[in-house]
Structure formats: structure tokens, C-alpha cells
């Protein structure tokens, strides 16, 4: 873990990961992004910040989350599988690691109001939660279509005191909710902080969010060492929409080439079906939401609408760090269909008594594909719990009877 040279997988002094990253924002956002860029390291590395952050992660979020040896699942695949239980975090997913960190940054920047985007509503709930905790006004943009299909999370946000604003532009889903949140920030440049929910957006967001999520791999190292006598697994598996849980799960293993990093993308109904969110399989380099990255787009450079059964993976791009991990071959990207994800989610429920989120089902579905041997150690980042997906699971109960 001692890096003598700068890692090719970490952000450089200019905000790039190789050719990816940067801050492609209109001038209206420049002062906001500059303020964050110039202050995020100073703020987050301050001992008092770290003390408050760690204490909230422990007492409020419930960290460290367990690293669980899944014996029956291991037997099924004839290998050794550990589950990093981010589903046990307060609010039910890893998302809160980031929102806790960012709200502490926002407070130190003197901001009065928080704006956020959300797709499935998990990041929206995690944001509304920390806003309630800190007493800040919270506005969450959510695609009009997502509001209809994720009603329980909309109600949770409202119960927490947040204002949920429907994004009615474009395709009325996550990409447009992100656009609307950025427009809100443009219109309220001085008193508002934008809590982006993933490792996307202009520099320094991808790096800042990855740092907050890096607690996942930091804990995995010590837990794995304690349980197996070794700090590094042979495989680390995580799903990637924008890619925040994967960024956290990979973080401390990026420069450990023996750890195979496996990123599960949503293939939807199949890569060639026209209903997919498999960004690296279908996308090309370009610019999305303020960063140079890989995104799904038309020949003319218009962003195309992704599809996945899982609203959290329903995003046309990936974070710039993931684009670099893909381009350099450091991480392997596997495309997982809706069906494969459902199979894996039902399998985990029946074998281990854990109902995972549909997003996480994509990571679990990689298990039969990676060729893990008997003595290999495989860690799956169990990014979220499946309560929010119960309506979808219920529709398929008969198939798995």
C-alpha cells in the first residue's frame, strides 16, 4: 500500500485520470467548483473534520460494516466469498458515507442549503437524512418518471423534511435530475452546496466522493487480515452505475495489481437490445455532467437514455476514474443482464438470508463468471439492501418459486 510514484489511477494535480476527468462546466459554475477544488483537501484532512466524520460513521451510520463469510454461497461456487455489508449502513446503502462527508464540507464552507439529484431515491434519502441531522434546507431533484416508480423513497425524503422537485426536462430520469440540480446550483451560486451522489461530475467531485467511500476498502483490509491473515483478496466485485461503491471498494487496492477488480455494469435486456446501460460496452469517450469520461451517445454526440431494471445503474456514463480503470485494463467490466441480476438476488436471499438491492444483484451475478478457484478469496461489495426493490422482486416471485 506504499505508493512511491503517483498512482496512474488516482486524480492528478489538474483534476484528471489520464485523459478522463477535468471540470467541463460553464463559467456560471466555475466559482462554485473552484471554491470546492481549492478547499476540499484542506477541509477533509483537518483532524477536527476527521474526528467528526469518523464519529458519525461509527455512531450514526453504524460502521464498521461487517465483512461476512458467506459459506453457502461459497460452497455453491466452490470458492471463498466474503460480503462487505454496506447494506447494513443507516438508510440501507453505502450512499450515506458520501453524504455525511459532503454535508460536513458544506457546513465548513458556510452553505445554508443543499441540492442533490437522485435516481432510485437512495442518494436522495441519504442526503435528506444528513440535512435533517445538520438542520440544513434540502432540495432533491428527481426525474418525474422516477418519482412515479420509486414512491416509497419519495415519501421517505418528504418525511425527512426534504423538498422533492420533479425534473420534467429531457427524458425525466436521473440524467435530467442531474441537469436540474446543476441548474439550481447555477441559480444559487453562493449559499448552496451540491451533494453529487456518485463519483461523477466536475473535479473535485469524483475524487472527493471516492475518498469518502474509500472507508469500504479501508475496513475490508483490516477485516480480511483479521479473518484470513491476508489483507488483499484475489477478487473485488462491485456494481457500477456512476460507480461510487465500486470506487470505494477498489480504492485501497488500485495499486495492488494482484487484486482483480471486477466492475458489473447493467446490460439491461442485453447489450444489443437497445435497452441497456452497459456504458463501457456501448459508450465512447466524451463529456457528460462536467467530466470527460465514457458515455453512451449518438454519433452526433447526444447523450442517449440508458435502461436497467435497477434505477441506481440507469445512468449513461461512468465516473472518470472508472473510465481510466477501463481504458488501462486495471478493472474488468462485465455486462450483467436484468435476468442475471434477478437470479443472483434470489440466490443470495435463499442461500444467505440477505435480500440485496437490484444494483448489488449485478455484482453478485459476476460470481460464476470470474473463474475463482477453491483457495481464492472473493469480496463482493454488498452495496445496498433490497427493501426498495421489493415491488420488482414481487413481480418475479413465481419464477423463483
Amino acid at each position, binding site marked *: 500500500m506504499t505508493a512511491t510514484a503517483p498512482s496512474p489511477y488516482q486524480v492528478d494535480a489538474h483534476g484528471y485520470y489520464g485523459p478522463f476527468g477535468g471540470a467541463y462546466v460553464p463559467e456560471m459554475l466555475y466559482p462554485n467548483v473552484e471554491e470546492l477544488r481549492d478547499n476540499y483537501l484542506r477541509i477533509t484532512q483537518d483532524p477536527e473534520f476527521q474526528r467528526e466524520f469518523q464519529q458519525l460513521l461509527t455512531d450514526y451510520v453504524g460502521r464498521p460494516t461487517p465483512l461476512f463469510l458467506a459459506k453457502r454461497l461459497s460452497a455453491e461456487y466452490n470458492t471463498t466469498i466474503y460480503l462487505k455489508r454496506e447494506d447494513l449502513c443507516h438508510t440501507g446503502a453505502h450512499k450515506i458515507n458520501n453524504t455525511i462527508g459532503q454535508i460536513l464540507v458544506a457546513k465548513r464552507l458556510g452553505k445554508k442549503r443543499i441540492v442533490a439529484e437522485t435516481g432510485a431515491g437512495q442518494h436522495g434519502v441519504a442526503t435528506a437524512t444528513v440535512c435533517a441531522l445538520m438542520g440544513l434546507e434540502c432540495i432533491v431533484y428527481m426525474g418525474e418518471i422516477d418519482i412515479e416508480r420509486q414512491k416509497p423513497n419519495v415519501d421517505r425524503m418528504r418525511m425527512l423534511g426534504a423538498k422533492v422537485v420533479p425534473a420534467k426536462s429531457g427524458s425525466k430520469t436521473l440524467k435530467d435530475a442531474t441537469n436540474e440540480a*446543476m441548474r439550481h446550483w447555477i441559480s444559487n451560486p453562493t449559499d448552496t452546496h451540491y451533494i453529487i451522489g456518485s463519483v461523477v461530475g466536475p473535479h473535485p467531485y469524483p475524487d472527493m466522493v471516492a475518498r469518502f467511500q474509500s472507508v469500504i476498502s479501508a475496513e475490508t483490509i483490516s477485516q480480511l487480515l483479521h479473518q484470513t491473515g491476508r489483507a488483499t483478496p484475489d477478487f473485488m466485485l462491485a456494481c457500477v452505475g456512476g460507480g461510487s461503491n465500486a470506487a470505494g471498494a477498489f480504492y485501497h487496492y488500485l495499486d495492488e495489481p494482484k487484486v482483480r477488480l471486477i466492475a458489473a455494469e447493467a446490460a439491461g435486456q442485453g447489450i444489443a437490445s437497445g435497452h441497456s446501460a452497459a456504458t463501457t460496452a456501448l459508450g465512447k469517450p466524451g463529456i457528460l455532467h462536467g467530466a470527460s469520461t465514457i458515455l453512451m451517445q449518438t*454519433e452526433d454526440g447526444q447523450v442517449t437514455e440508458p435502461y436497467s431494471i435497477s434505477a441506481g445503474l440507469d445512468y449513461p456514463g461512468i465516473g472518470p476514474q472508472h473510465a481510466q480503470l477501463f481504458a488501462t485494463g486495471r478493472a474488468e467490466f462485465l455486462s450483467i443482464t436484468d435476468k442475471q441480476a434477478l437470479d443472483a438476488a434470489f440466490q443470495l436471499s435463499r442461500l444467505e438470508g440477505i435480500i440485496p438491492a437490484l444494483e448489488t444483484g449485478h455484482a453478485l451475478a459476476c460470481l460464476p463468471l470470474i473463474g475463482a478457484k477453491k483457495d481464492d478469496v472473493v469480496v463482493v461489495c454488498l452495496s445496498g439492501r433490497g427493501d426498495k426493490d421489493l415491488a420488482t422482486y414481487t413481480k418475479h416471485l413465481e419464477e423463483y418459486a
Partner: protein
Amino acid sequence: MNRLTELFQRKTADVLNVYFTAGFPQLNDTVSILQALQEAGADLVEIGMPYSDPVADGETIQRSNQQALENGMTVAKLFEQLQGIREQGITVPILLMGYLNPVVQFGVEKFCQRCQATGVDGVILPDLPLEVYERQYRPLFAQYGLKVVFLVTPQTSAARVRQLDALADGFIYLVAAAGTTGAQTDMNADVDAYLSRTKALGLQNPTLVGFGISDAASFAAASRHTTGAIIGSAFIRLLQQTPAERQPLAIKEFVHSIRA
């Protein structure tokens, strides 16, 4: 000489720049709208290249972008439409405005070549960072005779304004108030102070004010401390509301009403 440069040498006050989205309301309206704006007396015209995710734009221009894309507008299509306009009597300076991704996908050098070949005088790419322009694209834009416009907002620091002014060679686009295009900007004392503060910096480029300029009063107020102003959303609304056969006349009346 570049038509934009020539314009600002000739005219240093009350310059009217009108924006419209290519391919809106109908796919093939581009040249006829250009023609009508020229005849009506617009000093320069900014043609928007539609984009799926225009974050700096408010609802009116977002909707025109979406409609234009549904109509089939692309960067390649726009250059086809602009082919030969300079031979057909269009003399008004033309800027292309758009987001970076479609330009990058088209190919930046090819884009510059096509601009030069069709007689485009300059570009506004709001999400092209100054630093990337300087490092990667500046010589290319210069090689093809394209002038570059940068945006400045009330939150832009004086040091940053000077940096932007040093690299711009078309004009400086002063965003009147924090917000997206089409926001109702009240031309109040704050805006006036910001415009006069910017004037006091003594910039090398002409300055045009945009965002929320919609009529004669806001045009006059915006032009008091600057070289002129830009009208976008209000013009898009006019195009939206006007039946096709009345379009040329309505454009003429609109421009005259701003000048009144």
C-alpha cells in the same frame, strides 16, 4: 477581415445579437431565419447547435433544443444548411453556440474547417474550460479564423475576468445575473453596478450582455455600460408562437420593437 471584428470596429454601442436554435421550429428554418434577422437589422446572429443536456439553459431554450433534435438537427446537418449562405447574400456575422460534446464527436478540427468553409465567424462553447481551450484548441481556432467568446458572470473574480479577456478575441458575454438563460433578470441596481464595475476593468474585448434581455427597456438598460446585448429566449418564444407564414414579418417586428 473577420465579420465579427469588422462589426465591432464599425459599431461600438447598441449592438444587437439575436440567438436562435438551429432546426427550430422546423428543421429547415435556419437560413430563412438568418435572412429575416439580417433584413430586420440584427447586428450579429448566434446559432445554437442543439444538445440533449443543455445545463446552462432555461426551459425555453431546453425545449427548442429538444424539438430541434426531434426534427433531426445535427452538427453535420447544420453545416449542410449553411453551405453557400455567404454567396447568397448573408453578410451578418455568425457565431455558433453549443456544448462541447457534439463538437468533440464531430471532430474539433473538422468543425473548425467547416466553420471556415461556410463563413462562420466565431464560437461560444460554454462548457469548454478556459484552461483546456488554451492548452488544446487555441491554435486550431486561430488557424481557421474563428473568434472565441467567453462568458463572465457577476460571481467571476476580476482576476478571472482579465484571464478570460486575454484569451477571448470575439467579445465577452456578460451573464446578467446568476441563473440559466431566460431567467427573469430585473435590470436593477445590482446588475447596473456589476456592468459598470466590469466596464471599469477596461477590457480589450467588446462586451455584450445576455440572460433575461427580452424587450426595448431591458436592451437599453443592458447596453448603457456595454457594447450591446443578446436576446435568446424571448426570440425563441416568438418563433414558437408564430405561424410559419408570418415568420419573416414577425421577426422584423420583433427586432424593430427591441430597437424602439
